């Protein structure tokens, strides 16, 4: 047995095949991107432990994630915020984690996407289980996992092929994602989920900017709209709103945070078209947002209340384009400054 020959053949073929694979996907327009996984969230969350009372932490769903831009915020306030928001999530578990498991006394921006915020407190339901998984991962992560994450970052920045499987995301090209594109009939009889393509680009600090393609390719934007409509029309397994429990859950933590000197800002970011109409139907403003604001007595900012926040570019009706997000972030900061909410050194 000539093992040395076999090894050399394997080595050469492995290099060639992986190079070919990388080049193929690059030729299809794929570029190396950072993956917004549990490890990167945990690394970001760990930074909260070292913040001062002048710092900012963002919690919420994908709207806060897409719409508040870290560069703009830092340029205006002199402080780089910590982005902990995540897609499809209720902010409650992450807000609770920051309030109860850190000594942070700065400002927490809580993004309120009403169907998610007021959804449920049931631990197994997706709007809660997703963010809770991130909190648990942070709490339980091993040194080996930290080491792996640290090693993976240069690879993620430089190679397309290292992108691994993501639940629900279409268009990925790891083996499992490719196999999932094969469908034969509809044996289960379940409604077919429209393909959900990634439409943002993540940075290592979890800043996300909407892909330029979303503003230039209406067909691509339509694929995202289709998935929103699929979910909003009752196909996402979302529970009916539970205003009392969710508000009580939030208020309990908000009181603790306020008592130790922290500040909270409630933010209702823009939505449009049918998305906004369905949100208004499921969680009417007066019954949900307004009640939350009155009960909590917190500074709260609804996009509908500000002229300058109307008519922004929301290519898929729920998140701002990159340019619009820059504008929105600055406008929100100006409003906060006018209201005397921002009190850090740069502003002063």
């Amino acid at each position, binding site marked *: 047995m000539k093992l040395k020959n*076999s*090894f050399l053949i394997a080595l050469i*073929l492995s290099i060639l095949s992986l190079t070919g*694979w990388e080049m193929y996907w690059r030729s299809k327009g794929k570029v190396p991107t950072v993956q917004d996984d549990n490890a990167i969230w945990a690394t970001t969350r760990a930074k909260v432990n070292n913040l001062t009372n002048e710092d900012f932490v963002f919690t919420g769903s994908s709207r806060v994630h897409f719409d508040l831009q870290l560069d703009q915020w830092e340029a205006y306030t002199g402080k780089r915020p910590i982005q902990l928001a995540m897609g499809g999530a209720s902010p409650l578990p992450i807000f609770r984690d920051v309030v109860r498991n850190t000594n942070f006394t700065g400002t927490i921006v809580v993004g309120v996407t009403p169907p998610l915020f007021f959804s449920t407190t049931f631990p197994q339901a997706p709007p809660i289980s997703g963010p809770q998984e991130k909190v648990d991962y942070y709490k339980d992560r091993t040194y080996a996992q930290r080491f792996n994450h640290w090693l993976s970052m240069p690879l993620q920045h430089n190679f397309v*092929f290292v992108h691994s499987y993501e639940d629900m995301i279409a268009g990925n*090209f790891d083996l*499992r994602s490719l196999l999932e594109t094969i469908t034969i009939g509809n044996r*289960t009889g379940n409604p077919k989920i429209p393909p959900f393509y990634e439409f943002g680009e993540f940075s290592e600090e979890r800043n996300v900017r909407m892909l330029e393609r979303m503003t230039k390719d209406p067909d691509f934007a339509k694929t995202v709209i289709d998935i929103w409509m699929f979910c909003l029309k009752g196909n996402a397994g979302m529970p009916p709103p539970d205003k009392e429990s969710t508000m009580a859950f939030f208020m309990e933590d908000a009181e603790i945070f306020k008592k130790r000197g922290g500040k909270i800002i409630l933010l209702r970011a823009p939505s449009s078209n049918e998305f906004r109409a369905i949100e208004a139907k499921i969680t009417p403003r007066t019954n949900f947002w307004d009640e939350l604001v009155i009960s909590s007595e917190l500074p709260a900012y609804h996009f509908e209340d500000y002229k300058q926040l109307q008519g922004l570019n929301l290519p898929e009706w729920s998140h701002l384009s990159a340019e619009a997000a820059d504008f929105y972030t600055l406008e929100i900061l100006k409003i906060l400054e006018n209201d005397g909410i921002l009190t850090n050194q740069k502003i002063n």
Partner: protein
Amino acid sequence: MLFNSLGFVVFLVVILAVYYSPLLNWSGKKIMLLLASYVFYGLWNPPLIALLWISTMVDWTAGNKLAKEERPGIRKFWLLLSMFVNLGFLAFFKYGDFLLENFVVLANSVGWDFQAKPMDIILPMGISFYTFQTMSYTIDIYKRKIEPAQTFLDFALYVTFFPQLVAGPIVRAKDLITQFYEEKKATMQQFIWGLFLLTLGLFQKVVLADTLLSHTSDTVFGAKEVLNFWDAWTGTLAFSGQIFFDFAGYSTCAIGIALMLGIILPDNFKYPYASIGFSDLWKRWHISLSSWLKDYLYIPLGGNRHGITRMYVALALTMLLGGLWHGAAWTFVIWGALHGTYLIAERILRSRIPIKINAWNGILFAFLTYTLINFTWVFFRAREFVTAKNMILSMLFLNGDGTKVLDTFSILKVGILTCLLFLCHWLMRNTSVREVSKRIPSWLLGIVWAAMFFLIAISQGNGEQFIYFQF
């Protein structure tokens, strides 16, 4: 640290570079391997290294005392001390909550209104493996089968040797400690073969178990509904393949990594899904555990030396405890009980119906064995009895209109993989990968190797933990 992680790749490269550099003598290399093994373990949960140290110290001391001591009473004391500490760790860390839970149920059933909060004890990774390994050392010295390790370093490395620390193979002292006495260096052939085995093990784990099978198995066993016949069978077959590829993959990686260091570890799997009968299965599945259970449980319980009834009792007890070794739940006990029942039934049938096995009926018996194994996996995988019951009923056509949770492609994928797995085991049952690789051209082996590497690279995933780490 997981073999299927970037961190491990870096760790292994550093270890190999230091091991084969001229910087250290053999003792220095062993110290380096020992420290590396603690790092390997500690990167998961540093404080739990203390358990490894305690286990090491107790069995090192007990072993030395047993070797020198002649008085039977004192010898028994040292043996019992070792067993008490090792089994005590297992009882507390692995079975603490299970025992408490059952105590509460028992207390309530006799009218005592007693409630207890779960202790939520963290299960130290691989505790079942290294405690069995250290116990075998002390028991073998007690029985005067082996001499104690020559140095503390050799013994500590035997307990902690990173390739097999957390999921085996469970290696006997005579097979591993003696390899540490003289400097070991892999030949070029051994090193490359070790690398091939590491690739093969990772392919089994990352591609076959995690990418192709685990999702189907999770979907089926996570379903709340009573399932359709095809879904129940597909989920069970998927788990059957997943657990084999996961565990055999780990063992293959461990054997390959050790071989790259010039250390030989024993085979742990020999194509078990082509077993003809259950006696054959336990000579092929998790061989290091089954031989441990045979030597340290079945034979001390009487084995086949005290008549048929006693033998069946010993067999049943061994399999029940073997089931419990896998996990602190009654479903694992049922899994062990089923295997015990199969073994007893097989012995009875063999004593009454002599059958000559040939290639034609052999594959039929192998298929029958494989089918019966799958029923045991249902209890192994199901978290609750009601899930197991519903699955078994569905598999036996007793749930008429079960829910369909799998798509057609998943059923086809698992079906094809299962057929390939069974046929591969059948064709390989009397040979080995090593033998086959010697018979095929080197270019073909190279292509297969590259294909496995490529598929690992495009599947890599997020480093799923090996199933057997929890045992």
